């Protein structure tokens, strides 16, 4: 009896992890404001947010001592 319950749980775990793994649920979705499912890999944090379709770099980047005003996009 208990193995039936275990099988049901195992199927639920397999279905969820296969969907999330192969479907890349934790990836960043381009041009989507809500990134609630984003799960950073290797401590890589997003440095901005989407506002509408536009990517707005976050102000956290300016806290670096040699910040160069907008990073590589704006040049030096």
């Amino acid at each position: 009896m208990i193995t039936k319950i275990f099988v049901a749980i195992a199927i639920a775990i397999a279905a969820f992890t296969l969907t999330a793994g192969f479907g890349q649920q934790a990836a960043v979705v381009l041009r989507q404001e809500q990134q609630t499912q984003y799960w950073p890999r290797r401590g890589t944090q997003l440095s901005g947010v989407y506002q509408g379709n536009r990517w707005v770099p976050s102000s956290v980047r300016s806290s670096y001592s040699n910040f160069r005003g907008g990073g590589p996009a704006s040049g030096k």
Partner: protein
Amino acid sequence: MASPAQIHRVGRYTDPFFHLLWLITGGMIAALIIGTGWGKTLLSTTVRVTPDQPYTCPPIELRSNAIGAFRADVEAIVPTNRWLTYELQLKDAQGQVILSALKQAWAESGTWSEEGESGSWAENDLLAGLDVRAGKTEPVTLTLAVLDYSDTSGQELEQPVSFTITVTEGAVDTRYLWAGLVGTTLLGLLASFSFGKSGRLVIQRRTPDSEVGGRAILGGAKNLVRVYLYIKADRSAPPNLTVQLSITDSNGTEIYNNHHTVNLQQQKSDGKVTSARGQLCKFFELAPRDSYKFYAIVSPANSIDNTKIQVREKSRTLWPVEVTTIQASL
């Protein structure tokens, strides 16, 4: 009179759901192998980036795939005792930044000494990874920029930093698959250990002696009875013990009486044998349903500390087992 006991190998009491459970675990292992090899490498290169000169990779097609995602894996190659902040940027065909992500990487080493011992340590965290899914296929460029590079004392460095960049399409997130494999394996193990305790416990008795027994109403058609005998002996016990197990029906007629050999496992503490344990597991089909008495006598008796008997009915097994079938005539 009882008909003679018959011993058969019986698979009827195995639980197919148990095997299904391990099949699911096997499926997760297969998924992990497939998932690891799924992605296709689009770019693999080593570049040098100076703090004021970002590096831009050649344009890459970011495809909208149902399976997997666009993956950029970057590793900074720096000497030890360095702090480094670098950024990955994705730009669209017009050169607009459409995504950026930061990695605070470091590599440190040093020496330690404690209680007369000493050695060196080195640790680092230099890898960055970004997985991206797109709604539509579009050309993108990946740019790598060093925002901050210093030694551990905070001294800014203007030297170039080497990076290895690997871009993959259709990369699968194996973290979920690992989690799924761990989860399903735990369930399989839990189920494996629970089988000894499956069914209904009808007799449980423990005596500080070499003889133990009990009576209960059990048995009937298609009902597997599992008898466990646990023996604890002192250190003077021989390596093998003999257990005489008997079953008596409600009339007092003995329907089973057999001798079994039990190997003892020695328990050690600080290299010295302190005690020894052994167990016996036997399966029966007893018909009709009636009151049966189980009795075990362990010999030689002088070294036995205690014995415990557990009888369960409606038991299940992992694999086909040897079952003693006894038809008692009342």
